[in-house]
């Protein structure tokens, strides 16, 4: 292609530049109503703090250019709205559009967290109803809606545990974490001031209960368990695990990222769990939005309630609701203001749409995972064969023989029109294929996915190079991640980007 012919491909393949490269002085895409008070002189008002020249390098483009730029970028993304997104542990389910609508209503999106509580009863009723629903779903006694995501929920939960032990005279030293856990679990334990002791799973991928008995010493504050585990397997002995911990005064934390397997079927509170977080952006369908925002409410047993982070929702006389900012034993504040309120609105909208019928969603999620497992077992290696719940974890052991690994298969899946499954963990499965279809997939979509996976397995045997060099149909091919990390370019610069592009 010569330099002169700039537009020679379909628009989705077009090389849309950076917005800064389209900028030309004097253009703008948003106009304000005229100023209706005397204009202040910024030089006089601000003195040395006045930025005379405005923000250097800021884009200057028109409205149509903004729309086109971001619309074109959007066409380079895969999304749930386009097809199955079987990213294990992430629960990429349908994000109902009505939830987006209600979160943007005037009277909700417009509300300020510091307006008086008399003028906030609608917001507070939403929080209260969501609290009640989450308590019913988890079987717990109290909940906080403050944490902004799962990882912050984990931290909140561990701080509750720490506060509880401190109140009993000794915060204890260690948190036990299975080797199958998500990376946030150990990262969180350290911030909560605990040492991490990793525990090895037994040969079926479950917690080794006998070994656990020896590991739970008076130094242990808690065990963080994911249930179903990141292998998609229910920890059958969880009530017994809870007893072992409780006998030593330790507590059981449950990472609730996988509640999509349990909602409406069983309740962590009944299983002996003391405290857990929920990922509303997984189980309760709030959109992932390219990485966030989420919400990570923490549900707990009564013994931990006094330590809940502020603010705390309380019901006063005549049903008036209020947020209390001061509690004597609270762990403090984990996030400013009242949680990720807009996310909480969406989650409640989801729960209300289903009502008690949310159980059907769980059943369909588990049905889909087992259907896929049934059709791919034998074609892909299944390292842990206990019954699957909402997700199934294969390994690339069979394809490795032909030099094809899980990442290659994942990339080839893109050519078949699917988003890859999770490849990065659980760490106890080398070369993991972690597949979570969710309830949002029809039988037809599951069948297409199964066909694609079978076909790739075939290709891995007959034409491994095709798989190793995938994807072949995307706008860009595999990207140089090593180079990106070695010489990081993390922002656009007027001159540098041109010379860097040249070398």
């Amino acid at each position: 292609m010569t330099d002169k012919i700039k537009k020679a491909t379909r628009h989705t393949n077009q090389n849309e530049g950076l917005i800064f490269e389209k900028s030309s002085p004097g253009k703008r895409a948003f106009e304000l109503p005229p100023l209706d008070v005397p204009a202040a002189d910024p030089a006089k008002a601000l003195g040395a703090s006045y930025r005379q020249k405005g923000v250097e390098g800021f884009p200057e483009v028109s409205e149509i250019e903004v729309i086109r730029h971001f619309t074109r970028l959007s066409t380079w993304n895969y999304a749930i709205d386009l097809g199955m997104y079987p990213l294990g542990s992430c629960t990429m389910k349908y994000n109902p559009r009505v939830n987006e609508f209600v979160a943007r209503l005037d009277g909700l999106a417009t509300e300020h967290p510091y307006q008086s509580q008399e003028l906030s009863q609608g917001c507070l009723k939403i929080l209260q109803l969501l609290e009640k629903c989450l308590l019913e779903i988890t079987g717990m006694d109290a909940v906080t809606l403050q944490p902004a995501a799962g990882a912050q929920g984990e931290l909140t939960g561990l701080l509750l545990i720490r506060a509880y032990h401190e109140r009993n005279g000794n915060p204890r030293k260690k948190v036990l974490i299975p080797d199958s856990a998500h990376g946030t679990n150990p990262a969180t334990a350290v911030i909560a001031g605990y040492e991490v002791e990793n525990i090895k799973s037994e040969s079926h991928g479950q917690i080794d209960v006998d070994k656990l008995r020896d590991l739970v010493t008076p130094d242990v504050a808690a065990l963080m368990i994911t249930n179903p585990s990141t292998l998609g397997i229910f920890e059958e002995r969880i009530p017994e695990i809870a007893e072992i911990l409780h006998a030593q005064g330790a507590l059981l934390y449950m990472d609730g990222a996988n509640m999509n397997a349990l909602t409406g079927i069983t309740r962590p509170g009944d299983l002996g769990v003391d405290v857990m977080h929920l990922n509303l952006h997984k189980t309760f369908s709030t959109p992932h939005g390219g990485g966030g925002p989420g919400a990570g409410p923490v549900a707990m047993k009564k013994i931990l309630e006094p330590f809940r982070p502020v603010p705390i929702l309380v019901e006063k006389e005549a049903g008036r609701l209020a947020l209390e900012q001061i509690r004597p034993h609270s762990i403090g504040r984990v996030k400013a203001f009242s949680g990720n309120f807009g996310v909480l609105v969406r989650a409640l909208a989801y729960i209300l749409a289903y009502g008690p019928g949310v159980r059907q969603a769980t059943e369909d999620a588990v049905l889909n995972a087992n259907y896929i497992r049934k059709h791919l077992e034998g074609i892909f290696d299944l390292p842990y064969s206990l019954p699957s719940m909402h997700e199934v974890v294969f390994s690339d052991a069979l394809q490795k023989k032909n030099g094809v690994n899980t990442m290659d298969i994942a990339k080839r899946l893109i050519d078949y029109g699917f988003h890859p499954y999770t490849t990065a963990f659980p760490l106890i499965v080398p070369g993991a294929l972690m597949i979570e279809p969710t309830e949002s997939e029809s039988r037809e979509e599951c069948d297409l996915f199964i066909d694609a996976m079978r076909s790739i397995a075939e290709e891995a045997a007959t034409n491994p190079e095709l798989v190793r060099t995938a994807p072949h149909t995307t706008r860009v091919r595999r990207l140089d991640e090593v180079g990106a990390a070695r010489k990081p370019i993390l922002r656009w610069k007027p001159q540098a980007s041109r010379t860097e592009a040249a070398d």
Partner: protein
Amino acid sequence: MRYLPKSPAERQDMLAAIGAKSIDDLFSSIPERYRLQEALKLPGPLSETEVIDFFKARAAENSGGYTSFLGAGVYHHLRSVVTDAIIQRGEFLTSYTPYQAEITQGTLQAIFEFQTLMCQLTGQEVANASMYDGSTATTEAVLMAERLTGRTRILVARSLHPEYRDVLKTYAKNSGLHVEEIAYSANGTLDQKAFESALKDDVAAVVVQSPNFFGVIESLAPLRDAAHSSGALLVTAITEGVSLGLLTPPAEADIVAMEAQSFGLAPSYGGPFAGVIASRDKFVRQMPGRLAGQTTDSEGRRGFVLTLATREQHIRREKATSNICTNQALCALAATVHLTLLGKEGLGEVARQNLSKAKFALAELENIPGVRRAFDAPFFNEFTVELPRSVKIVNAYLQREKIIGPFVLGTAYPELTKHALVCVTETTPRAEIERFAAAVRRALEQPV
């Protein structure tokens, strides 16, 4: 149920294909006695129309019809309908963290643009995308300073947002950090003397907000000089990003922790917003959170990937720089679209309107007998006034006149019981400012 794409017959077929007799077979690993025998007691199911009606009814129980003079970390700004139109595109809304770069170039390039915008605004060299909010960004900036200096004492301005200070203390408690607060001076800026006498060679960072919680603008250069002379880092928190359209960037800071709410995110009763950390290139490996970097594909085309992941929890586990995983990506995208819409001129104009309206409001209030400005350093769109009676009483009166009064500083600063933090933005019409001032005057004339 309308969200579920299976007919009863399809479910039966699928069960048969699996070899299960009933759906219960698939839950056999959950001990029978722990399986719920009854349906959950949840409200619903509601049709789409009923869901909308429910939330409209709740919305009607809030502050519709009132004019607000609240800021204090959350600001009412104009938002273009374009922003929501873009971020509601399913390709952005319903995709995950862009780990699979080949099919998430849209998100990745937008993040790269966000990082660039944040650098341009703050005068820093590198910015992440993103933290949960300004409060956790500030906390993470402090933890970053601890890693960079190997020191544990933290000096925090009392004029840092009270909730940010609270969050910092929650995280600090178990991280071995010692947080000390530094007083403010008569003009509302950090008390430089108190700061310098607290500054020793065990201090990791000094944290100041600018414009600070009282609305006044700090001079960062002397703070940086003092901090650096003892080997400490300057962390600057920004709650009102629009101020950067008119204020010199906090380039003196070693780490900037910013709340991006003012860039096109609705107040939404406190969230979701987006926190940002910006800093120097040389500190990037101690930065928390996601970073998109430019690279090339196997055919030499420009593309973007998440990079420097060895800082993050999914690789480093207990040695990670932070436990953050899910962040506020869509909010960062909204900020990117919003700032692109405003552009260089638009952001400057918004900022000038804020300054002009706040100045106008202050003049109106100062005309009222007994009302005086409390701190006289330069301000942007928020300022503090001292009233001749309790702000709570005044606010109760204002509420009867359909006005949401200013932030009551006494709730966070016991010594400032008669002090109000007034915020005026480009969204507040002149007539409402005048109505507010007249109502304050009447409130002060009420018999006690």
